[in-house]
């Protein structure tokens, strides 16, 4: 009920606005229904406190994503956006917000300079996959390990300021951009990545949600103060984190971006079982149109996260990195995407009963068929081959190959 009240009231506000300013509101959305068969490495998915690397377990039907994205046009340059999402699979269903922000987008000057800004709760500018309505990926039914983590633990609550230099005003094929975000409510970012490692899925954490932490022996002693559920969007130290990116586009052939994220938390704070995790990383992305019907997308992320006890002893300390390369080929109504990934987590601390080391590779192959302008059928097969010693804590083999096949129907409106 706690969730439903703001949901209903915001919907009624939207509806009443819709009556008053019918022309100024637009509602878009997505219906994504799936059949899946998953062979996870443990009994549970990482989402429900298991060590399984996929979103699903076993086999069944699910609501991959139900999304409503409402945009209120305040004037020509200001708008506000509210994104509602619902996800449903066996025993793990939820509905709520993922983003809510005001946006300013100015007109370019006659030299091509343009300023824009976001204020509110919004995704960091990292993913080159999740670019469609409600942060869905048009290419596949799953996001890569990098972007699945972005969807799970990262969200900016704050201010973004961006400058673009559009090349077309000076007959140049080069467009440059730079942006900076100052954010809060991300002091626990890194908790889940450290404890369940890299994962592949299509689940975005809703703003009110808390995610179960995997069982491991240190939670009985050194980490007994840790709450059983991690709250990814919590503010503890009341300081701002920083995230900045630089972008470059060449004609409609290349898009590249580079960024640095640092949640800039004070170390050793704990509030209601939620610790501050000091997390920083670099990310790089390139999207290159090789030929008219071929494109390559690659992203790399590398960083570290650690948490200290209130006595300032470093308790959990890991380095992480992940890379993927996606090749996509498309013609008429057909679209193929092949994605290969490599990821690691290096455990740097000596805490007993909390081995967070991990290495893994993943391959995903997806075919998308366009039924009509708005409807698509997708079929996807994924394999994750990983070595994660912590599975030993739940009596599962350290080395595992997990498999998943999904058939999805998507309707965008």
């Amino acid at each position, binding site marked *: 009920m706690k969730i439903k009240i703001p949901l209903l009231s915001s919907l009624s506000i939207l509806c009443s606005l819709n009556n008053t300013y019918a022309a100024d509101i637009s509602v878009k959305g997505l219906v994504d229904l799936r059949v899946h068969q998953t062979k996870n490495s443990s009994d549970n998915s990482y989402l429900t406190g298991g060590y399984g690397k996929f979103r699903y377990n076993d086999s069944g039907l699910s609501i991959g994503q139900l999304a409503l994205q409402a945009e209120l046009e305040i004037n020509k340059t200001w708008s506000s956006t509210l994104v509602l999402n619902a996800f449903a699979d066996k025993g793990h269903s939820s509905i709520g917000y993922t983003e809510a922000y005001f946006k300013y987008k100015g*007109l370019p000057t006659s030299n091509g300079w343009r300023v824009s800004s976001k204020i509110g709760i919004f995704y960091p500018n990292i993913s080159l996959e999740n670019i469609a309505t409600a942060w869905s990926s*048009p290419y596949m039914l799953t996001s890569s390990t990098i972007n699945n983590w972005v969807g799970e633990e990262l969200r900016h609550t704050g201010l973004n300021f961006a400058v673009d230099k559009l090349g*077309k005003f000076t007959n140049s094929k080069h467009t440059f951009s730079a942006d900076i975000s100052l954010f809060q409510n991300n002091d626990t970012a890194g908790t889940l990545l450290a404890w369940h490692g890299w994962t592949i899925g299509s689940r975005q954490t809703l703003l009110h949600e808390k995610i179960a932490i995997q069982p491991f022996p240190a939670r009985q002693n050194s980490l007994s103060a840790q709450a059983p559920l991690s709250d990814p969007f919590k503010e503890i130290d009341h300081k701002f984190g920083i995230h900045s990116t630089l972008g470059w586009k060449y004609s*409609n052939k290349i898009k590249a971006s580079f960024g640095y994220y640092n949640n800039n938390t004070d170390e050793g704070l704990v509030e209601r079982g939620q610790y501050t995790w000091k997390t920083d990383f670099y990310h790089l992305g390139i999207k290159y149109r090789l030929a008219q019907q071929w494109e390559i997308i690659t992203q790399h992320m590398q960083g570290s996260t650690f948490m200290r006890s209130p006595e300032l002893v470093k308790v959990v300390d890991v380095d992480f990195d992940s890379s993927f390369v996606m090749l996509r080929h498309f013609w008429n109504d057909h679209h193929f995407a092949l994605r290969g990934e490599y990821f690691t987590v290096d455990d740097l601390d000596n805490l007993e009963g909390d081995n967070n080391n991990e290495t893994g590779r993943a391959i995903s192959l997806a075919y998308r068929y366009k039924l009509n*302008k708005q409807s698509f059928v997708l079929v996807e097969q994924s394999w994750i081959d990983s070595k994660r010693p912590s599975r030993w804590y739940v009596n599962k083999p350290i080395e595992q190959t997990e498999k998943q096949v999904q058939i999805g129907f998507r309707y965008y409106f």
Partner: protein
Amino acid sequence: MNKLASLLLKKYLPLVLLACISSLKAETLVVQVFDQTNKPIKDIVAFAIPKFAIDSLPSNTSQVVIDQKDKKFAPYMTVIQKGQKLTFENKDDITHHIYSVSGENRFEFKLKTGETKQTQALIGVEEIAMGCNVHDWMSGFTLVVDTPYFGKTDDKGNLSFNNLKPGNYEISVWHPQLDAEQHIQSQYFEITQGLNTLDFVLKKALLPIPTQQGQDEFDFLEEY
């Protein structure tokens, strides 16, 4: 010899016919635009400005429509007379945010699917670069000229101006991809009685027109 005669016939017969159609008193100028390899250039804008005192030039009041179709400006290039308005028609099923930030001819409006909007009378004599603030790759150009004598060349690179008074004219061609000052190349030409023809050769090749297409082909993209 026969070949030459037929070539001449092919090239000039339409012009002769055109001259016949035009009124007896009026002078006609046919401009044919070529590149340096002698290839005719179609769809390039040409205009003629009289360089002598004329009491009043006629005003063009026809409606000029630029469509937004398939997330492109169509046509890509438009030419109007000072004081004319532009009408934009959104034939896509999404909203566009049309703008010009050029000199005196600034305009900006959001255009929902199926909507039509008109600018104010455009009075700045200049090239207008138009864009869409939602789809950065969309690009279109309008040239505002201070003369009623303008148009675009046909498939054979020809454009005819009728009802001209004899005298000296500045004949210009314009294309956003013409590598020249203000993207315009001009020359003087004297119009005499009867049919006048001018072979207008571009000094530099036109640069390629940028494709009005985003990198991602998917229809339901957001600005993430």
